[in-house]
């Protein structure tokens, strides 16, 4: 089985290749068969691999397919490395990916570029698998950029709309900024270790650097640069909301479940470096905390259903970063998995709603869908409950509560982080249920045209079940000693040290978290369902209005970047369009012409003038040679 690892990413690539080459000629029904089928087989392979992995107790599988290039001892390979961490990621990618492919088979059925869509999606799944399977950082970088490309292609999928093209370009360029930092990090790592093999670096790093060494901090920060770009964290978060221009399955797969969590994967994968660089780890935690708050408040004010979800994704990844920052590695990965389930579910549900309402994105033009689309409503509700971390019954509660708790009690935890996370949780439950109430309750405002069919409902239901039950594999310590997930990751990721003094009163914090989530839901209920005039009253005050505008614009980051980077650059480029340096050369040419016209005047045609010139020249030569 471990010899077939290469097939897991290869199959989606093969699917993409087939679709690119023959997609326009093959019968339409074949397109989703190839597209979803290849990912499906991959996910089956992953499950078999997982079963074997769990049963034979090996620490890792490594498969070396071929040497990519080899120069003077530096030889990154096309080689795959599977351990417990990777297993989680490839499971989520292939399995959730497969479900989303199934969903898209119906969702995109009307689109003219059916095969292009599936080709890009397959290419994405392949690249994402390469990213997480790579055993060296160069190959990881390949996957990293590959998913960036696919994200670009899929955001700009409906390319006829210029805005989509801009959004796609923005996403690619902003993530590229982060990638650049990461690339520099790779150069630095190579300089110290002479290799970019992840495992070798992880074993050598503690011997080379002491804890808190400046180089280690620098490397870690550069890697964080890459991670914040890909995972849409502060300060590179602005691309993700615009990325919602892509079709909903794309948002579900790329911009919620998998690609945006690549940053989480990268940091987890190289956790040794972060343990050597506590400063960098601190930075990660605070980036996470700041992002989750900023994105949460922004989500409160959005009208576009998908933008709410986009900001909530940013916010949730902020939680993961916070967890990474405090050293709660497995908690971050756990939240990643649960988040993948419920956020994919929410996006797919949103997609179904949007499709039903003629591609209407504005929540305030929706409403009353509860009765009309029961399956979508209930699954969406389950997803929302998970997102808002409704206590006990939702998976989101278990994963988020763990982060909240460890944010306070973990080794690097602090009260500030805890309060930020708690405030975030409160805001999360408000905006989540604001979204639910506005979209599904109230009266119907737009006519429903298209009801989701079987292939769209199936993934919703499966994901809803996972969003409910996924949390029970990892329970809080004081419930029962049932920590399947942490135990499973123990060989790869160290277990976090918990402040023993606080451990006895953990139940207090759990109750606080539960109350916060429930009160958030109640406030949403109060403002948007029970007494809508409250919200309207609030909007009238001047302060609230400007605050609303500020939050609505995503805290002004877009405007800031436009003013500081984009516009000066474009201005500089436009101003120098005809290339200033060329003026020098044209000037030279004109100068030569001018000299020419000057010297032409000496050509009088008078013999005696010429002779005079010869004489003067002779005198000059003789004089000079006499003087020297």
């Amino acid at each position, binding site marked *: 089985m471990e010899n077939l690892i290469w097939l897991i990413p290869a199959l989606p690539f093969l699917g993409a290749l087939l679709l690119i080459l023959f997609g326009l000629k093959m019968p339409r029904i074949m397109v989703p068969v190839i597209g979803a089928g290849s990912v499906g087989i991959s996910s089956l392979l992953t499950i078999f691999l997982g079963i074997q992995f769990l049963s034979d107790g090996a620490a890792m599988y490594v498969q070396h397919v071929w040497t990519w290039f080899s120069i003077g001892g530096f030889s990154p390979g096309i080689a795959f490395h599977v351990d417990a961490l990777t297993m989680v990621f490839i499971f989520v990618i292939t399995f959730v990916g497969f479900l989303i492919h199934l969903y898209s088979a119906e969702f995109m059925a009307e689109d003219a570029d059916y095969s292009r869509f599936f080709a890009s999606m397959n290419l994405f799944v392949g690249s994402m698998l390469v990213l997480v399977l790579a055993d060296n950082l160069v190959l990881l970088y390949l996957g990293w950029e590959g998913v960036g490309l696919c994200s670009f292609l899929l955001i700009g999928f409906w390319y006829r709309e210029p805005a989509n093209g801009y959004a796609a370009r923005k996403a690619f360029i902003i993530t590229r900024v982060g990638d650049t930092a990461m690339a520099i990090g790779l150069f630095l790592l190579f300089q110290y270790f002479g290799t970019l093999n992840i495992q070798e670096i992880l074993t050598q790093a503690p011997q080379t650097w002491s804890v808190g060494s400046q180089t280690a901090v620098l490397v870690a920060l550069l890697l964080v640069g890459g991670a914040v770009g890909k995972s849409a964290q502060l300060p590179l978060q602005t691309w993700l909301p615009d990325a919602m221009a892509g079709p909903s399955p794309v948002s579900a797969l790329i911009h919620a479940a998998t690609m945006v969590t690549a940053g989480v994967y990268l940091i987890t994968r190289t956790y040794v470096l972060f343990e050597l660089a506590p400063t960098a780890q601190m930075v990660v935690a605070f980036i996470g905390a700041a992002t989750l708050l900023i994105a949460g408040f922004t989500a409160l004010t959005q009208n576009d259903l998908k933008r709410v979800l986009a900001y909530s994704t940013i916010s949730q990844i902020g939680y993961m970063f916070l967890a990474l920052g405090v050293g709660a590695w497995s908690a971050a990965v756990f939240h990643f998995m649960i988040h993948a389930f419920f956020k994919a579910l929410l996006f797919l549900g949103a997609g179904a709603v949007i499709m039903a309402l003629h591609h209407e994105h504005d929540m305030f033009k929706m409403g009353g869908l509860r009765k009309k689309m029961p399956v979508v409503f209930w699954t969406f509700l389950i997803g929302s409950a998970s997102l808002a971390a409704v206590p006990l019954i939702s998976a989101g509660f278990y994963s988020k509560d763990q982060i909240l708790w460890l944010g306070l009690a973990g080794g690097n935890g602090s009260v500030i982080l805890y309060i930020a996370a708690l405030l975030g949780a409160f805001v999360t439950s408000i905006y989540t249920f604001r979204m639910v109430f506005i979209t599904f309750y109230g009266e119907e405002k737009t006519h429903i045209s298209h009801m989701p069919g079987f292939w769209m409902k199936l993934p919703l239901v499966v994901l809803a079940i996972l969003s409910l039950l996924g949390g029970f594999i990892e329970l809080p310590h004081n419930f029962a000693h049932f920590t399947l997930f942490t135990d499973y990751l123990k060989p790869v990721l160290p277990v976090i040290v918990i402040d023993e003094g606080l451990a006895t009163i953990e139940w207090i914090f759990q109750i606080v978290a539960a109350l916060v989530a429930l009160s958030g839901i109640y406030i949403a209920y109060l403002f948007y369902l029970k007494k809508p005039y409250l919200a309207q009253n609030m909007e009238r005050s001047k302060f609230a209005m400007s605050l609303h505008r500020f939050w609505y614009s995503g805290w002004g980051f877009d405007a800031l970047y436009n003013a500081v980077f984009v516009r000066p650059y474009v201005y500089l480029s436009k101003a120098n369009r005809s290339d200033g340096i060329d003026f020098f050369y044209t000037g030279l040419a004109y100068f030569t012409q001018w000299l020419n016209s000057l010297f032409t005047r000496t050509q*009088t*045609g*008078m*013999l*005696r003038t010429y*002779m*005079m010139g010869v*004489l003067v020249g002779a005198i000059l030569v003789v004089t000079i040679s006499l003087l020297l």
Partner: protein
Amino acid sequence: MNGISMEAGLLLAAILFALGLMGLLMRRNIIFMLVSVEIMLNAAGLAFIVAGMRWAQPDGQVMFIFILTMAAAEVSVGLALILQLYHQLKTLDSDAASRMRG
């Protein structure tokens, strides 16, 4: 062996050369210009001969013979050109032939 110093010979050559040059620049008549060129060539030949005598080598005289030949050829071609020029322009004014238009 005689007592004439090289300086004296070269001085004579220089004076003749300068006079030829002056004539060349002063006159507008093209025949006078040709004559002045002859004077200059002659002066150059004189300088060669003086130098040859100084070192007791025949080379100076050889050079004079070459200059002589050259002067002869030059004069014949030059005069032919003057004839044509006069035929065309009806004047011997060198400034009249200042346009080079083919």
